[in-house]
């Protein structure tokens, strides 16, 4: 069982769901590690965005309010932290702010950039998992350390009864294993 293969299998499974869409930069083009895991996702499910991280997260929440389950992708944690206004102030607080009426389900993929064989440097390889976890109240956060976890966690993120959103942190360095 390989890490990247499990990501591909999970995305293929999610891609077969009627209400999912894959949103971010380099969804339909090559560009980063996450792009390479979408090869079995139907092209019509991929929604290519400009570089606008915060807007992307808010758009993902808005899509979820309209009944979609967006899989919103951030290829590096360093880029993901640009979304914090939408992630922490809105998506994470929406159930409380709507007295439980609004339960947008967003599946958030965040990759920690690899340092080998090329070191992306301090702006491309940070892992802010602990900091983000400490800020969350509603959103679930899962770290994908092992290939065995991957499919099960994506399945859970899509099917969980409480409709909570999930951040799934993955490691680009594991893609070759």
């Amino acid at each position, binding site marked *: 069982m390989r890490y990247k293969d499990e990501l591909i299998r999970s995305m293929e499974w999610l891609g077969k769901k009627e209400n999912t*869409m894959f949103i971010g930069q380099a969804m339909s083009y090559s560009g980063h590690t996450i792009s390479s895991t979408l090869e079995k996702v139907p092209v019509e499910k991929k929604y290519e965005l*400009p570089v*606008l991280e*915060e*807007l*992307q*997260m*808010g*758009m*993902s*929440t*808005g*899509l*979820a*309010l*309209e*009944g*979609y389950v967006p899989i919103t992708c951030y290829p590096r944690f360093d880029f993901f932290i640009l979304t914090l*206004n*939408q992630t922490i*102030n*809105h998506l994470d607080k929406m159930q409380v*702010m*709507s*007295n439980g*009426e*609004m339960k947008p389900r967003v599946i958030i993929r965040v990759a920690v950039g690899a340092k080998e064989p090329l070191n992306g440097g301090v702006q491309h390889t940070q892992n802010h998992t602990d900091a983000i976890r400490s800020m969350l109240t509603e959103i679930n956060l899962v770290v994908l350390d092992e290939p065995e976890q991957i499919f099960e966690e994506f399945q859970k993120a899509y099917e969980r009864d409480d409709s909570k959103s999930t951040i799934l942190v993955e490691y680009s360095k594991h893609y070759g294993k």
Partner: protein
Amino acid sequence: MIRIPNKLERVRDVDLTPKELIDFESRIKEQYETGNIPSPIHLSKNNEGELIQIFEYIDKDDWVFCSWRNHYHALLHGIPEDKLYNDIMDGRSMSTNSKEHNFYASSIVGGIIPLAVGTALGAKMKFSDKKVWCFIGDMTFETGIFYEAYKYVKNFDLPLQFVVEDNNLSVHTPTDIAWNRKEISVPDDVVYYKYENGYPHHGTGMWVNF
């Protein structure tokens, strides 16, 4: 002064009068000053006519996104007065949100804009007739996130209508002074009106002992 783009179509009559809106805020003011509301409130006044006119263009099924000052918007979009009143009394003046009524308010400047863009994209993808209305203040209008979103909405022809409510204030800071702005340049396809709010940014202007 109000400007509504010609492309918009009036879709309904609004059954609330300016007096009913003013009276509602007066009830909230009274409760706040009595110390019965455990959270900040942001009251509206002097923009009743403009909002009634704008909501004649907003279908009850449309989405409405707005800010912390949202009581008028909530009433005009069909949230029952009793529900709104109870929400405010429970300390939710700034988030009188309702999924049933497609209504979302946020207290973060500009925070509603990305949500509105995504909701409009979702509506368009579903070939829905639903529109999305996003009410922002004149300081929010000047932020980068507005321009990013405005460009995206325009380029992809999303069913999102921005409304700029200009009281030339951000809390108590005049927007034109903070930006050294000589005049506001709101695009022609954005609804725009200017008014002078009859209440302070939050509260009623009276010190309240809780």
